[in-house]
């Protein structure tokens, strides 16, 4: 684990399929139909079934845990700026989490994250602060 300012972590990639959404729905208790029904998703103006924003943030948190050997998280958050559309096929989509250490201060490391799908940012200002 390298928590010195400026360190760039190895990006982590997570495939997300419709099965991942079903699995996350079950594990989280979030059964919002926009995450499994194209009919309902399009009826509220979405392009189709989208991933739970919290699944995407959960994957970002997983990347942070991998990079920091499970360091204690003090702050974690993001805006859900672009929906992650998950097609009804066998490959789904790929969520990529990149990150670096922005600063280390008072025993806390602030990590800047970049979470993208096909090069487009899906989270706005994702940030994690861990105990260094």
């Amino acid at each position, binding site marked *: 684990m390298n928590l010195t300012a400026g360190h760039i972590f190895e990006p*982590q990639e*997570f495939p997300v399929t419709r099965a*991942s959404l079903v*699995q*996350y729905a*079950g*594990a*989280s*208790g*979030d*059964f*919002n*139909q*926009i995450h499994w029904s194209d009919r*309902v998703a399009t*009826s*509220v*103006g*979405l*392009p189709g079934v*989208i991933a*739970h*924003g*919290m*699944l995407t*943030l*959960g*994957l970002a*948190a*997983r*990347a*942070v*845990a991998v990079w920091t050997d*499970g360091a*204690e*998280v*003090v*702050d*974690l*958050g*993001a*805006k*859900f700026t*672009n*929906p992650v559309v998950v097609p009804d096929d066998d490959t789904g989509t790929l969520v990529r989490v990149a990150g670096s250490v922005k600063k280390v201060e008072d025993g806390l490391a602030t990590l800047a994250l970049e979470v993208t799908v096909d090069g487009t940012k899906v989270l*706005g200002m994702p940030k*994690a602060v861990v105990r260094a």
Partner: protein
Amino acid sequence: MPVDSTLVGRVFPPTRPYTVTREKVGEFATATGAAGAPGTAEKVPATFPIVLAFDAMNAFLAAERIDLFRIVHGEQKFHYERPVRVGDELAVTLTVASLRQIGGNDIIGTSSEIRDASGDLVCTATATLLHRGEAEGANA
């Protein structure tokens, strides 16, 4: 139908206490990218409290007769006082912190305090929820 503006500042009753189990944590970790089988040493993922916060949100939506499928998550933050551990018994108190109307949509800000069995604050989960008005088209 816009969300009732007198909601701001309302504090909803605490949710029923929730016991964090190793099995549930393993299931959640697996669903959020943990490689391989969840180990018994698995730490509680940082986004796990959403399970409780979501429950509190559902109770709030039901009380206000807001359809879940019209809700899109806009923002989520967690601030921890201490990590959540297996065996914790947690309850959530949700407060409606803010409400704005933009283009037929409601932007609802909530703050959920997650406390342990002794009443100590463990984590504060703040969320922005976008409630899509019924005449609303695509803007995501």
